[in-house]
């Protein structure tokens, strides 16, 4: 196991896509210290910014201890192994990740699990905007894997999503599943609105309150309970909405009936 401790409090953003089990594998602590990172506009080595402790067992397991909120691209493109962050993590955590596992015991910045293809990210804190979403303008959204958030998430979680699963056990911001094509997003608590805007496929489950449903969604019926995945069921009753009709979409939006009495008027269309 490799453990990284920051040597100072970072002032500038640090781009460290080398912090992955793939890059660390088969390297000694000294070799790991020589890996290149960018601090602001200066190129540095990992050893100049972190203390690297290697217990010479498996270096496909990496632990980062301390405040990593300025460190971007931790675990980018990783395919295997495990990263544990004991503290906050910065933007682009697990970008284009293909396999393995990342666990964060703290808060994470924007674009967590951006363009992810496989593997799992579990975050025991809050997450910024665009989790699972691609870079701005791009259509290459999350294609597989799983993001589990135990806190709240910002706006546009799962934008352009094409597969995989995002589970949010807290509240979600606006535009959950914006332009989503497939996959599933589960929000256990409240959702700020505009959920599923422009979605053409996939499923969104809202267990708490949803401020309003977009006018381009139609009600399809109610359901007593829905299965999110193996071992995770939302108990209803739930309203089922179809949309986004403006995009000829066929996505499903499940909204809890008990918490959303303001959506009751939809029942007369059933």
């Amino acid at each position: 196991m490799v453990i990284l401790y920051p040597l100072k409090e970072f002032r500038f953003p640090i781009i460290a896509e080398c912090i992955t089990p793939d890059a660390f594998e088969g390297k000694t602590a000294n070799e790991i210290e020589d890996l290149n990172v960018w601090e602001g506009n200066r190129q540095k080595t990992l050893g100049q910014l972190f203390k690297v402790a290697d217990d010479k067992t498996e270096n496909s397991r990496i632990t980062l201890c301390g405040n990593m909120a300025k460190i971007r691209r931790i675990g980018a493109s990783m395919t295997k192994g495990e990263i544990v962050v004991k503290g906050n993590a910065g933007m682009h955590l697990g970008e284009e990740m293909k396999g393995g596992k990342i666990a964060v015991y703290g808060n994470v910045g924007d674009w967590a699990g951006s363009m992810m293809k496989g593997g799992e990210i579990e975050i025991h804190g809050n997450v910024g905007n665009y989790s699972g979403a691609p870079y701005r303008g791009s259509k290459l959204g999350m294609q597989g894997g799983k993001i589990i958030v135990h806190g709240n998430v910002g706006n546009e979680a799962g934008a352009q999503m094409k597969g995989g699963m995002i589970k949010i056990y807290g509240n979600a911001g606006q535009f959950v599943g914006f332009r989503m094509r497939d996959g599933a997003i589960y929000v256990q608590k409240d959702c700020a609105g505009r959920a599923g805007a422009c979605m053409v496929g996939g499923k969104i489950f809202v267990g708490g309150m949803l401020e309003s449903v977009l006018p381009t969604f139609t009600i399809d019926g109610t359901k007593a309970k829905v299965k999110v995945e193996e071992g995770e069921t939302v108990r209803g009753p739930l309203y089922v909405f179809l949309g986004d009709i403006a995009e000829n979409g066929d996505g499903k939006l499940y909204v809890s009936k008990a918490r959303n009495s303001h959506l009751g008027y939809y029942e007369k269309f059933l």
Partner: protein
Amino acid sequence: MDIAVRDGKIVERVNERKAKKVDASGMIVMPGGVDIHCHIAGSEVNTGRLLRPEDHFRDFERKTIRTRSGVGHSIPSTFTTGYRYSRMGYTTVMNPSMPPLEAKHTHEELNDTPMVDKASYPLLGDWWFALEYLSHDNVDELARHVAWIMGTTKGYAIKIVNPGGLEAWGFGQNVHSLEEQIPCFDVTPRDIVRGLCKVNKLLNLPHTIHVHTNNLGQPGNYETTLETMECVKDLASSHKPAIHITHCQFSAFKGEDWRTLESGAEEIARYVNCNSHVTMDMGQIVFGDTTTMTADGPFQFGLSELTGSKWVNHDVETETSAGIVPFRYRRKSYVHAIQWSIGLELALLIKDPWKIFMTTDHPNGGPFTSYSRIIAWLMSRKAREATMKRVNHRARGKSLLTSIDRELGYQEIAIVTRAGQAKALGLGSKGHLGIGADADIAVYSVNPEKIDASRDYKKVRRAFKHVAYTIKNGIIVVKDDEIVKSVEGSTIWLDVQTSEPVCVAEDMKRRFRNYWTVEYENYPVAENSLGVSKRIAVKADV
């Protein structure tokens, strides 16, 4: 053999002891590359950059001591465009679509594109005044008007895009054949092409009319292309072509619809082989992600409907239109694989390399940085087969490429990438290494005597991608794929001299006030706003 250079020109001999020497033994020496058609500047290109942040973040260049930083894969920023061209041995680049209204913007961007000489073609096919003169059959007056436009916008050739279609697009329509009437004007696309071809001849412009055909990108459009070429046949003089069909690949589709799409390259190649009044460029596609941008608004609208991609539409007032759609060419798509095949078929079936030039219609078919891949495909059957194995199965069965054995030699590559293009453009001092030519030279580290391009196509591809030396105006600017000196290129424009100076009528100034968003006084591009101005004077017959 030695090539001597003095003061930016190739000369017979120089003092050998004092001169700086570049050892190019065992390498191939060519004139600097000339690109006849690539969208590198202008409001359209810039809007494309704004539209596609995702195109930038993976492909970026860091600042070095000599070069600026830049971003962009399919639409790189201006400085990066210049550096990348230079690193492939190109020294002259033509920016083919400049709405006259956007001329100032285009030239500002061209000023910021270093390392290459450049020029722009103003879009005149749907220009209101042109349509008006043509509807009155007043070719002489139109010629004087075009002469004025060339000087005003600092343009180089007449560009016609989807003649009539762009005007119709202003009313949400398109034209579908050469005979169709254009709304509000009593002219047809045939009148426009013929009229501007006559104007081109009257003004003695160095290049021919540069035509993007009607029905571009529609199945079955090869017939329109044949008609377009045929309609100016009688206007050609014996020694000079009359029409340049640009990105012909997009205009060589046969079939009823997308499912039955086939290649019309054979028919077009047969016509071009039998006639001498046509030149064309390939518009080859390269698989991967790119951005399509043309002045053909209705075509771009169709493309965005087809792909569901984001889309920019731009109506340039009374002049033209434009559209931009991000696009990905996929190997496994039947249509894209056929398109890939058509471009190469055209280049290989047209026997005379002086009639067909290598382009990707950057960025429509793919970024210009993939030219070396096209060179490999043209030079090696093996390279074509390697790609062919990976494309759509049904398209492979329909492609003519399997039956074509022709492989271009180094000599022919030099023609399709520089000499032919320079000749078609009428740039006498470019595209060759004779005495008096501009000292624009590219040296590629591949030994034509030792390396058989048809077998070792990968080596050739690498050599044409990463130049050993690029010499611009007698200065070594690139060495071993690295910029060693950043130089400004000049902007070439035509000063067309009519028998009496063209005066702009009061009537026209009044109309400017009525129909344009800029005042007439703010319209012309002053010569001192060009970075390095290179005026070519042309004596007109009117």
